[in-house]
């Protein structure tokens, strides 16, 4: 049901022409009379029932549909939670063999694609030069007509269909349809595909993307292969990597080689900062075919480091070497790297990911652009791809499109390619349509609609069937009513098997492979990078969330800071701090980066993870026509000259650039406070050798660690100060961290267990687990394992989705009264970000500002710590925040008056204030323009202006689980449910549960030897326990 609101008639205004005192009297009486007439000032709300109740739908109870995520080519399984006909949350499918319950940040943000406010509302056709809305009948009529014209002119052989690359039956279906109309097979295009690596893998292993068994390796060398950065099948890669690292005894060491330390590089134990284009020298060094001295000359890395590296590689087996194909010689490097993998069995080619087969390469699209320019394409159809933006501008795809007589786009969203089309037949979103995929051999992943279509769109598969039916020659071949029927008819085992498999989301079986292999393209070879001119090397890299640009109109992906640079809503030129210092460039100073293909002016960001002579720019931003959020930032593909590696992929690292100071300054839109911990001990680490020996270890990040280790914390009673030394048979010294039960109320609170509480208080006993109400039986707590966390920010995206968190960085969300900041990210410049959980990123170690490569990175997911002795609770003047008996720090939104004293007092700075009405539709800063508000979780209050909010440990999930258990007349099962962040994490770093119950996993983890609390010296008694990161700074076997 839904509600509508109607205003009731109001009372008449006061009369004129009376004296002031009389006026006030009369006004007062008439208004009083009005209000006494029984609330006539209140709005009347309506309850609209269904005509017929949908089957198996209980209002207020969610339905869950298993489907397949299509945000990248991996093909993870998701469970779509749908409430009252609207999909509100995606979770990883726990049973799905590819992602096993995890879901990355982009997968979570798929909902912002489904409900994107800039989606095409319906079909459009170009009339008088403008795209105008038309009906489906008319649109299909136009398409049929154009198809007929093309064929009758003999141009069918020159029609081109570019489809988004996806595994599954649609590829074969599409080719069959094209063949029926005399058109050649389609180009299956994924701009994020790494073609050099795919080609090399096929040659070496026979599969496009083998599974990397990290558990079977002692050493992994990644040469620009960003397997934790949305490269390849990211979620299973991250799952496997985190599991391997969690086995500390046998954990692998990761060495990253490359000019830019990506997120994968920051997770590595060592970074070898070679010059761009010199990766081949590294591979040859590892293969013993060149000396460390020669490699040092080629790469610019010190000979001693390279020598040690080569020795370690030679002496460590099994090992994995993976290379990313970013350079001009990407294919050669990848082949050479693959050749080094003959020892050990860590490359599982029989368990590979099939989502990367049969991709068309950018070389083919460049060749297509040339054909279009010479009038060689009669009809262009594009679905789910945006080559006008995702190819370097120098390819000239957009200009070439103008030479095609008729262009059809099936895109759901406006983008640079669809805006050039003559006819738009918008496709359903992947969550609105049927489909299938085969992500790994032997598993068919099913895709089904999770809700009715949001707009007047149609599945392209159904459109093609409809068009075929209109064609007399083909109607007989397309007897099925729709694509779903067609899928069922082909499904191994038929309709019954499909229906049985649908709730699980996948089934055993295999889909027939399309017969054609992709032809080897003629590539536009690039000269070696040393031959280009410029004062610095230019590295263009794919942004981990926005990718090739497809995520740019999703505000979550724009606002979640990039885990490496902590930048949002902005494109920057990353430079090594020592280089920037030498050039007189501070953060934010504008530089002009000029190549043979063009120039960009953008602010500098000093990032220690960049090779000294390199400037790096991330892709994906700087759209011209992709919606209201996508306009932020700049597009580095505008300045990339045409250049491909020998496999046909774009050579993103192919040229030098001239980087000059442009004068002027732009503020860096970042959420980073400081890149260093300054001894605060927020992200702590322990070396593997110390962990094994049971020593506390030295950690440069925690100035207090050794002190606490020696003397205990400030509150440790004098007689209990621990003796130093594990040889005394005690636990690690300074174990104040887990001497108390996380989630426990502070000993000084009015707690039955604490004798220090006030005996006269009415709250006495409220926190007693034996209290008659049963409120205090549970103690919710969380552990975050920094040895597993890779900083991917999937947790952040999941939290945005679950908790109705507003994004604040859009350019209309600035203040109206005093607009001292304008543009995208303005609110973030004022630190007004709202993310309840954030990933803090700290560098440790001597490297960094002095230009050396030797620094360690700590990723710390930071959310409300639900302190047992919370500094925020006593200072609220209206008691809007308090400690619940079950261990949560609760924020009661309706009591909050917006003093912000709580945020002031919070040492973790995890409280966020609604400075504007982000949650109020009537206010200009509303963060959920229709239909983004359809995604809002009805179980979580949408906060208005002036209200403080923060992580609630997903209290709505806690209550939901408790309610369900009570309804089913049973107790909660251990690990029965978890928070949104923990559920999504592909590293399984976050564990949530009841610390008062031994059977929950969190209780065991909280007692781990690596456990500590952030700022425990402040006696906050946090319910969040962090487990120290384990560093592997030296090769195994050495001290």
């Amino acid at each position, binding site marked *: 049901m839904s509600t509508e609101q109607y205003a009731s008639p109001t009372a008449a205004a006061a009369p004129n022409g009376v004296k002031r005192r009389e006026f006030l009297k009369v006004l007062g009486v008439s208004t009083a009379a009005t209000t006494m007439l029984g609330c006539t000032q*209140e709005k*009347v709300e309506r309850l609209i029932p269904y005509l*017929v109740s949908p089957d198996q739908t*209980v209002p*207020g109870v969610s339905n869950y549909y298993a489907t397949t995520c299509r945000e990248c080519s991996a093909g993870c399984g998701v469970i779509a939670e749908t409430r009252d006909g609207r999909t509100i949350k995606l979770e990883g499918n726990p049973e799905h063999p590819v992602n096993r319950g995890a879901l990355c940040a982009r997968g979570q943000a798929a909902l912002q694609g489904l409900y994107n406010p800039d989606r095409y509302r319906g079909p459009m056709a170009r009339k008088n030069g403008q795209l105008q809305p038309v009906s489906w009948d008319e649109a299909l009529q136009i398409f049929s007509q154009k198809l007929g014209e093309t064929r009758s002119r003999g141009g069918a052989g020159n029609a081109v269909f570019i489809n988004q690359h996806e595994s599954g039956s649609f590829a074969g279906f599409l080719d069959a349809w094209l063949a029926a109309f005399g058109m050649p097979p389609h180009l299956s295009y994924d701009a994020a595909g790494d073609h050099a690596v795919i080609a090399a893998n096929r040659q070496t292993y026979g599969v496009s993307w083998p599974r990397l068994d990290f558990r079977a390796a002692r050493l992994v060398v990644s040469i620009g292969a960003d397997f934790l950065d949305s490269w390849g099948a990211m979620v299973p890669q991250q799952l496997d990597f985190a599991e391997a690292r969690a086995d500390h005894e046998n954990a692998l060491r990761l060495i990253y080689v490359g000019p830019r330390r990506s997120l994968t590089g920051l997770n590595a134990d060592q970074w070898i900062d070679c010059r761009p284009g010199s990766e081949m020298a590294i591979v040859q060094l590892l293969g013993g075919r060149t000396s460390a001295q020669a490699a040092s000359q080629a790469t610019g890395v010190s000979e001693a480091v390279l020598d040690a590296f080569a020795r370690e590689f030679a002496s460590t087996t099994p090992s994995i070497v993976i290379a990313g194909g970013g350079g001009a010689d990407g294919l050669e490097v990848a082949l050479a790297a693959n050749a080094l993998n003959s020892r050990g069995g860590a490359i599982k080619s029989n368990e590979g990911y099939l989502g990367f087969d049969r991709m068309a390469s950018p070389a083919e699209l460049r060749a297509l652009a040339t054909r279009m320019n010479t009038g060689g394409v009669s009809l262009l159809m594009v679905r789910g791809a945006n080559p006008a933006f995702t190819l370097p501008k120098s390819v000239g795809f957009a200009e070439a499109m103008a030479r095609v007589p008729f262009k059809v786009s099936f895109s759901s969203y406006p983008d640079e390619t669809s805006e050039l089309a003559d006819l738009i037949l918008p496709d359903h979103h992947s969550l609105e349509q049927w489909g299938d995929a085969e992500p790994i051999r032997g598993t068919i992943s099913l895709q089904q609609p999770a809700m009715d279509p949001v707009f007047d769109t149609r599945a392209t598969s159904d459109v093609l069937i409809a068009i075929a039916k209109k064609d007399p020659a083909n109607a007989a071949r397309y007897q099925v009513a729709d694509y779903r029927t067609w899928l069922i008819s082909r499904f191994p085992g038929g309709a019954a098997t499909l229906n049985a498999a649908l709730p699980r989301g996948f089934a055993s079986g295999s889909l027939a492979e399309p017969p054609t292999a992709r032809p080897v393209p003629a590539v536009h070879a690039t000269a070696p990078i040393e031959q280009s001119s410029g004062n610095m090397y230019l590295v263009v890299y794919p942004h981990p969330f926005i990718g090739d640009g497809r995520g740019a109109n999703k505000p979550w992906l724009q606002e979640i800071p990039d885990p490496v640079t902590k930048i949002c809503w902005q494109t920057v030129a990353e430079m090594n701090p020592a280089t920037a210092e030498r050039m007189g460039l501070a953060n934010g100073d504008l530089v002009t980066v000029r190549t043979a293909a063009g120039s960009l002016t953008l602010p500098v960001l000093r990032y220690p993870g960049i090779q000294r002579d390199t400037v790096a720019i991330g892709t994906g931003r700087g759209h011209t026509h992709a919606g209201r959020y996508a306009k932020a930032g700049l597009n580095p593909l505008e300045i990339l000259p045409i250049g491909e590696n020998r496999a046909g992929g774009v050579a993103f690292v192919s040229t030098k650039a001239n980087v000059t100071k442009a004068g002027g300054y732009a503020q860096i839109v970042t959420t980073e406070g400081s890149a260093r911990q300054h001894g605060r001990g927020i992200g702590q680490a322990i070396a593997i050798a110390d962990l094994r020996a049971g020593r506390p270890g030295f950690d440069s990040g925690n100035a207090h660690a050794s002190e606490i280790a020696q003397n205990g914390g400030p509150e440790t009673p004098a007689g209990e100060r621990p003796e130093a030394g594990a040889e005394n048979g005690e636990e690690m010294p300074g174990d104040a961290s887990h001497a108390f039960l996380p989630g426990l109320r502070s000993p000084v609170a009015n707690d039955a267990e604490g004798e220090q509480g006030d005996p006269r208080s009415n709250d006495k006993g409220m926190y007693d687990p034996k209290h008659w109400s049963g409120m205090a039986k549970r103690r919710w707590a969380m552990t975050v394992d920094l040895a597993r966390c890779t900083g991917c920010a999937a947790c952040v995206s999941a939290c945005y989705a679950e908790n109705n968190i507003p994004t604040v960085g859009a350019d209309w969300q600035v203040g109206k009264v005093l607009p001292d900041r304008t543009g995208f990210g303005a609110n973030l410049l004022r630190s007004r970000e709202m993310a309840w959980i954030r990933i803090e990123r700290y560098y440790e170690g001597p490297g960094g500002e002095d230009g050396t490569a030797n620094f360690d990175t700590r990723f710390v997911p930071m959310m409300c710590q639900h302190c047992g002795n919370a500094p925020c609770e006593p200072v609220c003047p209206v008691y809007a925040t308090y400690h619940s008996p079950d261990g949560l720090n*609760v924020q009661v939104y*309706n009591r909050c008056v917006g003093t912000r004293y709580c945020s002031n007092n919070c040492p973790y700075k995890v409280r966020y204030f609604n400075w504007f009405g982000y949650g109020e539709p009537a206010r200009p800063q509303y963060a959920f323009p229709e239909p983004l508000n359809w995604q809002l979780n009805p179980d979580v209050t949408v906060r208005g202006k002036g209200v403080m909010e923060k992580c609630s440990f997903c209290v709505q999930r806690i*209550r939901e689980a408790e309610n369900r258990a009570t309804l089913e007349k049973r107790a909660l099962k251990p690990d029965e449910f978890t928070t949104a962040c923990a559920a999504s994490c592909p590293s399984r770093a976050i564990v949530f549960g009841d610390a008062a119950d031994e059977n929950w996993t969190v209780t065991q983890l909280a007692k781990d030897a690596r456990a500590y609390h952030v700022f425990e010296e402040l006696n906050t008694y946090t319910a969040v326990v962090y487990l120290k990161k384990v560093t592997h700074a030296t090769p195994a076997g050495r001290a």
Partner: protein
Amino acid sequence: MPGFICIAVLATMLSAYSGASSSEGNSPVQPVKFRHTIHVDTLKMNCLYCHFAANKSFDPGLPAMSTCMGCHTVVQGTTDDNKAEIQKLAGFWKKSEPVPWIRIHKLPEYVHFPHMRHVNAGVTCQTCHGQIQTMKQVYQASSLNMGWCVNCHIGQSNPPFRARYDCSACHY
């Protein structure tokens, strides 16, 4: 005196706009005069027959038009008044228009009230909604104020209930 009246009036106005206002006694005229007296008292229908979600969900559930028409395609009514109302209902159904009921019981949006917990704990519908079976036209029988709710949760009702009473029970 006028100053006092103005302040009193202002207070009344403010409380009328605030979420804490009580609509106790509110009894709007519904578009179709549905008689709980006939259905619940005379026919002894279970509340859950129509409000089917009350024992499963936060939401009590509003009966779909098809629930009404399940009987009323056949049952035409006995008195003239009843016959007229049923014809009104049938009119809506024929036009495929749902009946736009006026909402009576509404809690503010920052309160999460789980019907099913209460129903399954043995709280009868009449405890909060009053003697619905005697209402020819439904009115709000209780204030639904927070104090009224908390009273029961802290064990002050008769018979006393045991329920969580800290803020996070409902406010999250």
